[in-house]
């Protein structure tokens, strides 16, 4: 009996020495298997390049339709207004963080307009945890920087994945024409606009009866709102 006790004691100590104490601790659950969404071919980017004046004209037409083609009177204040919390990509708190996987020296500050526009729309829906640096660093399904493509400079958004934030509605519509902006704002849904051939992204949040207004992530807090500018190259709405 004593020999058995001695033997079991040695075996126990040896096991602890070899395996260590990790086996006694809780191990994190293995990464969940997730199915990553892919782009619907029907959603491929339309080759549209509409000036700001034309976009605003389409807005006025939509407003007239909405009013039954009656006499149009410029609203005092906003015709449509969707409150959207503002984030600046150039906020010093996060502007120097590498964008996505961090290749090519790009940062949230220099190239994070699309990321920041998406974060503003998440904040509008109550997902304030998905702010620009958090969405930038978001790991999901065992994959770091889930919202980003890891090729090239590692700084390009994978849109279907970026819109897959847990708890979010999967409904999204991209890239639609300028004639649909008004109806989304009417429904209280901000529109991310791809402008100047994809060189920049802004969030359309209001129509003043004459012009659309955007939250521009390039600007700081004091200049966050400005009339729509540049050329419109597609709209994105999600989470409805």
């Amino acid at each position: 009996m004593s020999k058995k006790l001695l033997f079991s004691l040695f075996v126990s100590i040896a096991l602890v020495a070899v395996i260590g104490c990790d086996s006694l601790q809780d191990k994190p659950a293995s990464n969940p298997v997730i199915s990553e969404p892919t782009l619907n071919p029907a959603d491929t980017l339309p080759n549209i390049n509409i000036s700001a004046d034309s976009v605003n004209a389409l807005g006025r037409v939509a407003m007239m339709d909405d009013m039954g083609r009656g006499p149009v009177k410029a609203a005092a204040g906003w015709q449509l207004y969707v409150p959207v919390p503002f984030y600046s990509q150039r906020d010093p708190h996060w502007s120097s963080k590498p964008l996505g996987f961090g290749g090519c020296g790009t940062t949230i500050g220099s190239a994070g307009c699309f990321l920041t526009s998406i974060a503003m729309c998440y904040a509008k829906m109550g997902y304030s945890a998905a702010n620009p640096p958090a969405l930038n660093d978001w790991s999901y399904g065992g994959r770091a920087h889930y919202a980003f493509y890891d090729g090239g400079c590692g700084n390009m958004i994978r849109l279907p994945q970026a819109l897959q934030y847990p708890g979010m509605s999967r409904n999204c519509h991209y890239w639609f024409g300028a004639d649909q902006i008004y109806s989304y704002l009417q429904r209280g849904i901000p529109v991310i606009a791809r402008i100047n051939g994809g060189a920049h992204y802004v969030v359309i949040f209001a129509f003043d009866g004459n012009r659309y207004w955007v939250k521009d992530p390039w600007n700081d807090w004091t200049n966050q709102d400005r009339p729509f500018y540049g050329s419109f190259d597609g709209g994105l709405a999600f989470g409805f």
Partner: protein
Amino acid sequence: MVDLRSVSSLQVNVGGEIFSPPLNLLSLDKKIIPMNKIIRILSALFVICFSAVAVGIFVYFSFFLTTQKSIPVNANLVFSASLQKNITDSNMTDIVLQMKNGETRILVSYPNIYFDHYHAIEYHAGNIYIIKRINNKGTNSDWTDELWKIDLNKHETKMFSAQGLDFRTSPDGGKIIVIKQNQGVDELVLIDGSGSLFKVFSIDELTIDPKATTTYPLSWSSDSKYYWGGIIHSLSNNVFKISTNDFFVSKYQFKGDLLNHDVTFNADASSIVYSDYPVFYDADEASAFSISGIKVTLYLENFITETIKTINTSVAKYFQPQWISETEIQYVDPNTGSKKIYNTEA
């Protein structure tokens, strides 16, 4: 008689209380008692030995490695410096020296180093330059970034502080350009190697577009006389050169985009290589472009001579150019996938 070969302990009920006397008091078999003692002694010895080994390993990793920092480091043997998370304390960041012989050495560890900054450390002439983020807790708005200089004897000097900063130190360590924001607009602060102010450059002094807000760091010339930077996200992008002798700023129009994947700059040659491959923020859009068949051209532009040369063309492919000397550029030939050398003087 109690046979201790069949029980390992004995409990005796004495007046309703459970009494567990030591085994050796109960045992009448004297051959068994020493055996149990031996087991206990051996076990204790084994545990002590095991603990000693574990402590030894811990001491090795946590103490012995850090004692390396006390060994004087010859600046001539240091190639560069980088940051790594400390393996025993997640709040600490190690400054790691890459020696010219290929070895690495932890110089020192600090809390608060801004590890997530895209350009958090530089090494020049025996000094390491790092950014610390101080007081960054929760929603506290009173945080600051601090630029520190640390020599190889671990003497620290605070050079600059601001809410958010970027920096580029001249090769000789004598001058530093600090990039910070002032009311949402960039400004450049030129300081000397001890942190004293030379001059502040407002964005208006650096750009040809009065609405520009943001600069982009390029590099110092190897003689530390000139700092080059650029303007991004502007209606009319440009690059600029600051002479540190007289603080004169030269501005040059630039039709490319400094955020392009194919941009590489050489301050000594006053030249930039770039392609017109578009800048993409959306992976699907980039994927669509890659099969579009659109022609992409790789250019060489000299800002002093104001000349632009075409180096090569591709069909929707990158070139990944790199300067390998003041007159030679290496790039990937998109037609063959092999590396090619372009001589700027040819």
